[in-house]
């Protein structure tokens, strides 16, 4: 019996030494590609097997050629002197690939046009030649742009102003990883500013629902657009305000008395409204319910967001 096993072992070893027909390694039908491309290649590819695309039990998952095209010229190139460089795959996604943007995008939308991407072609990103692979690393086991902590690095590749703003002392918790750009922006959608909801206010209400009202005493700009007063990406002013009181308030208000005061700091303790429009919470020292008030006090004061 031991002799038989030894013979089997030797036979097996002999078989190992032969060059068997290439087999699929991570994707259905990938053998013709992975016979050359692996992790040691300049374009490492195998990690896609750890992704949703590499879940071969799901019959919807692609082969290499589903995205990169049949690429016959690339595969049949024999090399050797005078043969010239190997042609690239039909569809390339690298930063310097020659494949037209529409063609690259179409390779993904063939399967992914539904769900949140139905309006992709109308989106600001599509209109500025951003394609799926501009942001997504399809072969990476964990696509950074789909990770809340890492996502902003991808966005900041183009959005330099926002990269600076989120590092200002007052910001949404984006650097801390508790929010990401896509918390507010639907980067595939067709809404203005590519927001997740249909307007700025509706987007802000998803977390700041207390500002929705309707209030007994309304402050019209609040209902219209939060970004009239707030810079959501980051500022140096408390509450993400674009400008400080009284300057911010005086972009709309030019009334008499204390409302027209200049920006100035008092020398000492005072309750004069003409001297306290800048210091501390500025105008909001008294107009404390600036987003709207629900007071029924029978006083004009209640209509001025002071109750």
């Amino acid at each position, binding site marked *: 019996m031991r002799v038989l096993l030894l013979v089997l072992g030797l036979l097996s070893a002999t078989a190992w030494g032969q060059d068997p027909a290439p087999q699929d390694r991570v994707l259905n039908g990938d053998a013709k590609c992975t016979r050359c491309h692996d992790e040691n290649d300049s374009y490492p590819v195998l990690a*896609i097997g750890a992704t949703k695309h590499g879940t071969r039990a799901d019959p919807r998952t692609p082969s290499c050629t589903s995205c990169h095209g049949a690429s016959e010229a690339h595969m049949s190139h024999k090399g050797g002197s005078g043969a010239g460089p190997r042609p690239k795959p039909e569809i390339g996604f690298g930063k310097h690939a020659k494949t037209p943007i529409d063609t690259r995008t179409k390779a993904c939308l063939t399967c992914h046009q539904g769900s949140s991407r139905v309006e992709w*072609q109308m989106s600001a990103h599509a209109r500025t030649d951003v394609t799926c692979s501009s942001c997504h690393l399809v072969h990476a086991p964990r696509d950074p742009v789909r990770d809340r902590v890492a996502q902003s690095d991808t966005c900041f590749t183009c959005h330099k102003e926002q990269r600076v703003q989120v590092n200002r002392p007052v910001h949404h918790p984006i650097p801390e990883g508790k929010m990401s750009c896509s918390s507010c922006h639907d980067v595939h959608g067709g809404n203005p500013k590519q927001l997740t909801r249909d307007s700025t206010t509706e987007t802000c209400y998803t977390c700041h629902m207390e500002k929705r009202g*309707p209030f007994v005493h309304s402050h019209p700009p609040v209902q219209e657009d939060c970004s009239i007063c707030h810079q959501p990406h980051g500022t140096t002013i408390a509450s993400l305000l674009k400008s400080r009181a009284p300057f911010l308030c005086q972009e709309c208000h030019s009334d008499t008395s204390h409302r027209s005061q200049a920006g100035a700091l008092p*020398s000492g303790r005072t309750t004069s409204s003409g001297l306290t429009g800048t210091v501390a919470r500025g105008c909001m020292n008294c107009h404390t319910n600036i987003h709207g008030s629900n007071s029924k006090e029978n006083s004009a004061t*209640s209509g001025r967001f002071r109750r």
Partner: protein
Amino acid sequence: MKPTFKLTALSAALASAPGFAQAQAEEAELAALTRPQSEVSVGLGYWSKDRPRLGTYDGMSQKGPYGLLDALINTRDDRTGTWFILDGRNLGLDTRELRMDWLRQGNMGVFLEYSRTPRDEPYTVFTGVQGIGTTTQRVPSPSATSLGELHLGTMREGLGAGFTKVLGGGYDFRVSFKSEDKTGDRLWGRGGAAEFVTEPINSNTRQMEAVLGYSDKKFQINGGYYGSWYTNHNALVDTALTTGASPFFLSLPLDNQAHQLYANGGYSLTDATRATFKVAYTRATQNEDIPVGAVPVFSGAPTSLDGRVDTTLLQAGLTQRTSSTFSWLASLRHYESDEKTPQVRVVQTGATCGTCVDTTPMSYKTLTGKLEGTYRMMQGVSLLGGLEYSKQDRTVPVGNFNAAGVDLQRFVPFRSELDETTLRLEARRSLSETLNGRIALSHSKRDGSDYTLTNEPKGDQINPIHIADRDRNKIKLMLDWTPVQPLTLTFNVEHAKDEYGTSDARPFGLTEGTASLFSIDAAYAINEKWQLSAWYTRDQTEAKQLGQRSATDGAGEAIKSANLEDVGDTFGIGLRGQLMPKLKAGLDILYSKNVNKYPEDISLIGPGTVLPASGGVTTSPLPNITNKLTRVNLHANYALQKNAEVRIDYIYEQWKTDDWSWMFADGSPFTYGVTTDGTQVQQAPKQSANFLGARYIYRF
């Protein structure tokens, strides 16, 4: 499918054969590369000092040790395509979150999640106000001489769940629900004068969204419901002086809810032509009983608001690639916010309307049309031209007029119509291996109808920023240059200028605004083991603001001209590399300096002083404010074995500010009240701290 072996006599024999061990190693290596990987990280970190500003959101604002625990269990059954993912982050911190996903890919999935988001107020409050954190607060009278230290903050704690199902035939269904509690306290004011109280926060929000989707090669559509509910467990805050005098009852947001039905979809008429649409209807309501304190109430005031806002969105778009060189896009969007809250009187201090306040339901609708064409020239060069037109109709049907027809309740002039036209031109170069980029120019012009005037002639002299006539010009330049293979440089230059229309009758408000940005990024592969990246950005905004000042507190009537400026310089450096075969290291540096300037010229046109004074208190012009942030992060990973490593992090950070927001003119702490209160709100002008953390990371 991954081959499996049974340890039989045969396989044992094979295993003993030459080459088998190598094949097995290759198999293991392939599996490590191509199968989902799990990771657990356990460690301890220590911050050397309190860091109230920079630790606002990260759950580590206090000096001391912190547990560093993260876990990602990421598994997939290859046979069935079933994923199980358990992702726990910051489990040793106040920012902890945990999410569990179970997914049978291509069939169905569920998720559960829990998260906490703290916000530690960066200011320290020293106060004698009683009842902080409750709905009954008393402000010291006379001023407190003994002040207690108070650290405010809020906590959001959320639970979520979701379910997805592929129904077959192109249909799929998704539903998600999230409930979030928010508790804590934030800085507030008592409303009657500059006196301190806090807003007690104890509320809950719930959101649910259910979507049925359909998708085939040509047609995709989603139809859904999105509901959101806000519940505030507090409704009114009773404040007064400790003597019982000056009782002010401060209102809080009331419960509200919104329900939305929507559908959006697209149809690819041909390979080159696609039409999209979106429709949505939302009804938001607020009808809770309006709480009243021990204050007089107008007999005609409603007991509840019956507040309602109906929002309608209609949107359609068409895009076509007419030829290999030309494509175009057209879209039309109608967005209408129709407030149906009854117009009712809330305040009336006399038998007739002496002082009256009515509700002011505001409605607006915006129609936006867009047309764009892109011509693709040779060698990846494209030219784009676009035109966008926006028309807005706005109403606030206030009926509180005096005999002269002037709206007594309006403080800001109002425009019922706004129109804006934007022209865009852009040139792009892409698909080059060395130099890509784009230059974009846009010009927009906004104007509108005549203004509805207010009850205050001086109030009518302003052009409110969001409805004023405005010419806006923008230019953006981006270049992406690879001069040699290991080096990539990216340049961004942006400049925008807004000019606001003024007239003799309406000279005040923002007259000009500019924003500019210059940014350069460099990425350099030093060799196979080391990569360097660096970036620098300078951003600058200016706002010129003209205003009038009425004579008050001894200051004379004047014309004010402010030139507000904000200049930022920020750079970052990142270095990654391999020091030894088992040792990887990295360095990240971030430096940011931001200067805010507040120069304001005051030209007197009447008798009085330049700046006001009252009760012996004078005022001074505003100094600049400078904020500086420095953060240095050194980290190293040492591989103990193939799937385990130790990571060491060292962070030095410093934040400096001379922000005067809570200071008197001489730099001493601002103090609330004169004879009452005495609260101070302070922050350390220089906050430096060091962090040292060590983690053991195991992958499997």
